[in-house]
């Protein structure tokens, strides 16, 4: 079956370290993959989009990689801060004419 997997266990990281979150998918060949941040009781907030022909994308302290061979995207936050604590969601569209399918998210906790 088609699915997106994110680590369901919370990720605890010490402030200042790099946090790395994983998004794995099966049976898709998406044209792009997106990462969103979600705080409790709030809607997702778009962070980054990476296309299939891009290996890496950066935005300030954020970096996303996309390996279409491994069917995996990695999301990195460098110099992490307690304010980065949230749930991070990955989402992809199986093809350009299909709606987004979402991972369950990984809860990131940055400890001071």
């Amino acid at each position, binding site marked *: 079956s088609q699915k997106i997997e994110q680590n369901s266990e919370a990720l605890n990281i010490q402030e200042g370290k790099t946090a790395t979150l994983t998004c794995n998918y099966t049976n898709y060949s998406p044209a792009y993959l997106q990462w969103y941040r979600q705080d409790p009781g709030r809607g997702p907030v778009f962070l980054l989009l990476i296309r299939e022909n891009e290996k890496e994308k950066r935005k300030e302290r954020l970096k996303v990689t996309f390996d279409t061979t491994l069917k995996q995207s990695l999301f990195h936050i460098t110099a992490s801060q307690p304010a980065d604590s949230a749930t991070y969601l990955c989402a992809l569209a199986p093809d350009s004419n299909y*709606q987004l399918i979402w991972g369950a998210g990984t809860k990131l906790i940055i400890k001071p």
Partner: protein
Amino acid sequence: EPEVTQTPSHQVTQMGQEVILRCVPISNHLYFYWYRQILGQKVEFLVSFYNNEISEKSEIFDDQFSVERPDGSNFTLKIRSTKLEDSAMYFCASTNRVPNEKLFFGSGTQLSVL
């Protein structure tokens, strides 16, 4: 920065009642969406709307659901006869880019069906 607004933030209703969830997307956006998220679970697509018509809907979006864009600003989701399992957070989203890219979400309406 422009934002998607949703009202009400909380809605409590009795099973079988009709509810209307309201959204004001960002003004120059063209693609509109409703998603829902049951507590602790994934975000689930309900329906997309473009050019005054539904462009796609999921299996969740059955005959009990409908959407309208009655004027140039509001975008509503109606559930005709609510069920207990409709209890969830409902999010409206919009984008002006290519469909499904860089969605802007509202803060959601928490619907509780008793």
